[in-house]
């Protein structure tokens, strides 16, 4: 007989819930089927684990690089001893740069200028220390599948995060720029500040704005889509720079280095933000992926061979059950929903 304590003190259970050990999945799935009377305790334990988050204070921007540099420099001092060839210096420097990737060079310059701008702002916080230190705190916000989140940044900018998304930004923005890093999908309503451009970093792209609203999605198989609702944004990669007008969407495919600017319909792109799950001639795969993301469930399909869907529909703030009832009627399938796993029989 297991109770909540037994689950929460079991390292294997914890590892399973935290997804760090895939092989344990079968064990606990079987366990659950064999012990239906303890399902409630298991669910409570799972909920506590998934809902708990630890207050992570991340290192200030640039500290990791700075410390690494000093560590590697230490080796340089040793290399300066007479019995070692003077060329060593160069080798270590090379190793350092190559080791952390080419673009870090540019980043390092950025950190330096960013850091200087911050010195003044933060000196008042550290009253104890005579020498002002740069202690910028980075905040990281993450949504899991099935979760959404709305944030207001220190400058008043509003950000909506879609499921499975992560953003990172400093607790306080610097004096001359506002930078946020994104993976996933988010919608921004940027507070106007002509002196401090607002930049969103995504893989391979920088989107810079001066007070505007737009949607960025990096979830589409490695591509980045920036959709502008109002205002003006500049999208930069190392290859090209684009200026977008409202209702224009840029689709960037980093693998083939292809840019496409198209017009888009605002409701379609922003449906998720209003809690609307929308399908427009979607394939079975697309529907399955969307449901998994939206409701945080795992879907397995049975008899999917040869089944082709062109499904259209709109669900505003509906439960998964309701969506399934209506969808199964239209697409003629049966399903079984157990906690977070859904089986669809076609």
């Amino acid at each position, binding site marked *: 007989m297991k109770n909540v304590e037994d689950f929460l003190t079991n390292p294997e259970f914890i590892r399973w819930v935290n997804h760090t050990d895939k092989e344990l999945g079968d064990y606990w799935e079987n366990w659950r089927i064999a012990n239906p009377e303890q399902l409630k305790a298991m*669910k*409570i334990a799972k909920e506590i684990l998934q809902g708990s988050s630890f207050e992570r204070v991340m*290192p200030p921007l640039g500290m990791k690089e700075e410390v690494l540099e000093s560590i590697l420099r*230490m080796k340089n001092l040793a290399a300066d001893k007479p019995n070692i060839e003077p060329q060593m210096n160069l080798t270590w420097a090379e190793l350092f740069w*190559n080791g952390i*990737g080419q673009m870090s060079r540019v980043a390092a310059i950025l950190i330096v200028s960013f850091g200087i701008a911050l010195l003044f702002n933060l000196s008042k916080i550290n009253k104890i220390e005579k020498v002002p230190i740069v202690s910028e705190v980075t905040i990281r916000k993450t949504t899991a599948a099935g979760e959404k989140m709305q944030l207001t940044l220190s400058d008043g900018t509003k950000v909506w995060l879609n499921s499975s998304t992560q953003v990172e930004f400093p607790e306080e923005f610097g004096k001359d720029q506002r930078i946020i890093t994104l993976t996933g999908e988010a919608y921004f309503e940027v507070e106007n500040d002509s002196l401090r451009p607002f930049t969103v970093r995504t893989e391979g792209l920088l989107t810079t704005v001066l007070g505007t609203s737009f949607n960025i999605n990096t979830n589409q198989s490695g591509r980045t889509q920036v959709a502008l609702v109002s205002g003006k944004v500049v999208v930069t990669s190392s290859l090209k720079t684009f200026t977008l007008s409202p209702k224009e969407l840029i689709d960037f495919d980093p693998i083939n280095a292809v840019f496409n600017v198209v017009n888009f319909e605002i409701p379609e792109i922003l449906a998720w933000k209003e809690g609307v799950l929308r399908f427009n001639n979607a394939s079975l795969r697309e529907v399955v992926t969307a449901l998994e993301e939206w409701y945080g469930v795992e879907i397995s399909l049975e008899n999917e061979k040869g089944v082709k869907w062109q499904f259209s529909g709109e669900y505003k703030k509906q439960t998964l059950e309701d969506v399934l009832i209506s969808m199964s009627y239209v697409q003629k399938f049966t399903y079984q929903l157990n906690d977070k796993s859904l089986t669809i029989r076609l």
Partner: protein
Amino acid sequence: MPAKKVTSNPYGIEDFRLPVTPTFSNDSEAWDAFRQGNESAFIFIYQSYFDVLYVYGFSIVSDSNLIKDTLQDLFIDLRERRQYLGSTDSIKFYLFKCFKRRLYKEVSKRSAFKDSLDSIPADFQFILSYEAQLIDRQIDADKISQLNDAIVKLSRRQREIIYYSFFEGFNYVQIQEIMELENHQSARNLMYKAIKELRKLL
């Protein structure tokens, strides 16, 4: 053994804080390469664990400079003594243990001649959040806030053990070692007691 890792990056923009792409299949392999003098293995280890060690350090003492200096000394030392280090199958645990020992030493050194109150430790605080989107919820919002009140009242050691277990994924043998407990049964007992405190409310 991969030597220098040059990230292919034709577009010129990259998150500079991402760790160097892992090129070792497991911890022992990376650790052994590092001990044999492989420089990219050192950088790989450094890049992979710096942030998580910093976060851990901040739970012990909220003094960014002290954590930074201690981390720097730790990595310098490891690098200089690499050929004398033992083997490990969990680099993370190895680093946590070394780092904790050093940090405690530094903290006690300082508090000997300086009022230690200017650095208030974060004390392994964690919170439960109410996820509005969750289906088939078992715990309601009221209970969540009661639980959060109870978490604050746990002892520091109780929160510390929950931190290792929930958030760092350490097992009881590792927890026993890092918390200097008698045996892993006492680690298990400490954990059980902490959870029981919370469970009272459910």
